[in-house]
C-alpha cells in the first residue's frame, strides 16, 4: 500500500495519485482532484537514504558480476584456443580439421562437436547479457581480452627481453615460437568466427529474453494491483 499523503487544503487522500515531475525543478507534484491545489510529495529521509544506498549497492554488484562474467568468458575462449590446438593438430603441428570428428574415440568426437558449440554459446550468451550495447561491442570485448590472454606469455617474454638488454643480463624466460603463435592465431580466428556466428541465435533468443522480462514485469504489476484492491 502507498504511504499516506493528505491534501493540506481539503484533506483529500492523495496517496493513489501519481506524482509527475514538474518541468522547472523536477519536483514530484500532485494536483488535488478536489481543490486543484498542487502540492509536492515529499518522502521520508529514512526511506530515501536506504533506497539510494540499496540501489547503489545493487548497481555495484551488477557491474562486478558483469565484469567477472566477461573475464570468465574470455578465459574460457582462451582455454578453447589451447584445446583446439591439441584437438585439431597432430604431434608435428599439422592441421587436421576432420580427423577428430571421425576418430571413433568418444572423448575426441565429443570435443570436436563441443568446442565449436561452446564458442557459439559464448558469443550468444555474452550478447544476451549486454543487450544495451551494439551487437559487435560485447563480442569485441571478449575477443580483445582473449587475444590479451593468448599473447600474454609472448608479450611478457619480449618485454622482459627488452629489460634484459637494457640491464645487460641474460633472460631466462621461454618465449613461445613464432610458429606456435601463428597456430594460436589461426585457432583464435576460427573461434572468433564461431563466436560471431553466436549472434544469430542471440537475435532469436533476444525476443524470448525480452518477452520473459516483460512477462515478469506484468506478473509483478498484477500482483501489486491485486494487493491494492485487496487492501481497498
Amino acid at each position, binding site marked *: 500500500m502507498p504511504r499516506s499523503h493528505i491534501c*493540506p487544503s481539503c484533506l483529500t487522500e492523495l496517496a*493513489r495519485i501519481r506524482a509527475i515531475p514538474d518541468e522547472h525543478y523536477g519536483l514530484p507534484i500532485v494536483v488535488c482532484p478536489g481543490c486543484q491545489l498542487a502540492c509536492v510529495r515529499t*518522502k521520508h529521509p529514512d526511506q530515501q537514504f536506504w533506497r539510494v544506498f540499496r540501489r547503489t549497492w545493487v548497481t555495484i554488484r551488477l557491474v562486478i558480476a558483469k565484469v567477472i562474467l566477461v573475464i570468465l568468458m574470455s578465459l574460457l575462449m582462451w582455454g578453447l584456443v589451447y584445446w583446439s590446438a591439441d584437438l585439431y593438430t597432430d604431434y608435428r603441428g599439422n592441421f587436421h580439421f576432420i580427423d577428430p570428428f571421425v576418430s571413433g574415440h568418444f572423448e575426441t568426437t565429443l570435443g570436436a562437436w563441443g568446442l565449436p558449440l561452446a564458442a557459439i554459446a559464448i558469443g550468444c550468451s555474452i550478447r544476451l547479457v549486454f543487450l544495451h550495447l551494439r551487437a559487435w561491442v560485447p563480442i569485441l570485448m571478449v575477443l580483445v581480452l582473449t587475444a590479451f590472454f593468448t599473447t600474454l606469455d609472448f608479450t611478457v617474454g619480449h618485454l622482459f627481453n627488452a629489460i634484459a638488454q637494457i640491464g645487460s643480463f641474460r633472460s631466462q624466460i621461454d618465449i613461445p615460437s613464432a610458429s606456435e603463435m601463428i597456430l594460436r592465431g589461426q585457432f583464435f580466428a576460427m573461434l572468433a568466427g564461431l563466436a560471431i556466428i553466436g549472434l544469430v541465435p542471440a537475435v532469436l533468443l533476444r525476443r524470448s529474453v525480452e518477452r520473459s522480462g516483460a512477462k515478469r514485469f506484468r506478473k509483478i504489476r498484477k500482483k501489486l494491483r491485486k494487493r491494492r484492491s485487496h487492501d481497498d
Partner: protein
Amino acid sequence: MMAENETPVKDGMMSEHIRADRACIGCGFNLYGQSVTKEEHYGLAIARCPECGEVAALQTYPTMSHWVNRFRALLAGFWVIVLLIAFVIQVLIVAAFADSVSRDVSDPLAKKIGEVYYNWAEENGTTTSIAGWATTPEAYYQWVQIPSDWADEHLDAIVADYGGLWSTFDRSNMIYVIPAWMVVFLAGVFWSIVLLGATRKRATIVPLAASALVLVLTYIEFPSSMFIVPQASDVAKELYAHIMAPIAIIVQLPALFIGVFFGRKIARWIILLTLPPRSRVSLSILWTRDGLDLPRP
C-alpha cells in the same frame, strides 16, 4: 481525561479519512481509516491515534529519526575501516615486492656467505645447522645459520673478497617488475575510485604514503637476531635491502601514477559498457565529481 487532551477542531471539516499507510509517531500504530481533521488554531490537517491518543500533523512526514544520522555515522566509520584495511594491504604488497626482490637478488651472496661459514665451521670442528641435512651441503649453503658474532667479524671481508655487492647482483630478478607494475596499476585505479572526495593529485598521496612507510620500515633495524639466529640468506638480504627496496619502490611509482590518473576514466568506461543508461544514475558521482555530465543514451 481524554476530553481534556483533545484538540479543538472546526465543525464540518471531518469529511476525509486516511486511505494509505501512515504510522503513528507515538506508538507506530497504522492510522489507516482514521478521520482527518483541521485543528482550530492554525488550520493544520491532523489525525489522532486511536491507540495512544497522539496527534499527528499530516502535512509533513514525521519527525526524522536519529537513527538515520547514527547509521550514516556507522557506515562512514565502516568505510574508513575498509580504507585502512586496503591501505595495510597496499603496504603489504609493496613490502612483499621489495622483500622478494632483495631476497632473490642476494641469493648468490647468501650462498657465498654460507659456504665460507660452512668451511670455517668444518675447519674449527663446529657443528652447522645443515650438518645432517644431506650429503651435498652446496645446495643448502644459503640456509646455514650464521652466528651474529661470526658475521660481525667476517662479513665485510667476504663481501670485499666477492667483489662488492654489485658484482653479485642478480639482475635477472628484475622480472618481478612486470607483475608488480600490473598489481600496483590496479591499486592506483582502486584508490582513484574509492577516494572520490579527493582530487586525483590528492588521491595519489595515500598509495605514496604506503610506499614511503615501507621505505621507512626497511631502514629501521629490527632486532630479529635477538630472538633467532639468522640464516645466510637473511644476512645477505639485510645487506641488499637498503639498496634494493628504494629501487623496487621507485620502479613501481610510474604504474601507480598511471593507475591513479586513469582510474576514474577506466571506471566510467566500464560502467558505460556494463550498465544500461537507466542503471548508471546510481553511480553518477563518478561523472559529477569530475564536473562531467552523465552521458546521454
